[in-house]
């Protein structure tokens, strides 16, 4: 289901997503690029604290930082997020579909039980 290299990248993405502040940062970035200063405002956090979170997100490949001098706007990079989403979605769908198949097996087992009883 997941290749070795994919698994490593997923690890970094999962770890980055574990924190609610980092998820909120990603949600904010989904609306458009912002500077660290603009990001810090709604979170009531210092810029260094926000910068720490941004480093984690950057290492996970979830965001990129612009080279625009002091401002260095943050931009969302959604590819790793889509990888994770795809993996989990596959997992859930996998069980839904399997249980539907199990329904059929159970019907068959019930039918053969009834036949046994009639004998």
């Amino acid at each position: 289901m997941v290749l070795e290299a994919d698994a490593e990248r997923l690890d970094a993405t999962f770890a980055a997503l574990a924190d609610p502040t980092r998820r909120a940062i990603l949600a904010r970035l989904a609306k458009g690029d912002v500077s660290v200063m603009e990001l810090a405002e709604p979170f009531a956090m210092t810029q260094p604290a926000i910068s720490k979170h941004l480093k984690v997100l950057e290492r996970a490949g979830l965001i990129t930082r612009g080279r625009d001098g002091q401002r260095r706007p943050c931009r969302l990079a959604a590819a790793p997020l889509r990888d994770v989403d795809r993996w989990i979605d596959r997992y859930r769908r996998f069980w839904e579909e399997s249980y539907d198949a199990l329904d059929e097996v159970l019907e068959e087992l019930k039918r053969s039980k009834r036949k046994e009883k009639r004998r």
Partner: protein
Amino acid sequence: MTSKLHVTTDVPNEIHMTRTFDAPRRLVIRAMTEPALLKRWLGGKRATVVSAEVDFRVGGRYRYEFETVGKRERFAFGGEFREVGEDRIVHTEAFDGHPGESLVITTYTERDGVTTMHHVIRFESQAVRDMVLATGMANGAGESYDVLEQLLASQ
């Protein structure tokens, strides 16, 4: 079509899944633990069960290997049985190539020939579970995750 698989997330480090089967408990458990029967449903339509080994007793291990239909990608998962009861089975679950192991507690309640299976997947921490949820395993399970869904949709 609405999913027959009902998912709730009230406990911080757990995911609960409920599914009802129109068959007595004994048959449901049989179909879930006998390799020959498991092979017929476990892969659904998208994967073939290449091998299923089940040592159904406390301390016994199980392992399922799959090959996807079409792309023929292989994947596998397995674990160990911790409890083997008439209406309660506890086992660990870990996917090859993916870190971490979860504990799966399954209870089976039978009523008028219909069995309700309640699946509790217990993760190491709320953080681990939230990672799973944040990425859409239980779509719409919590408002706080809607942001992430929007985020994904906007890309």
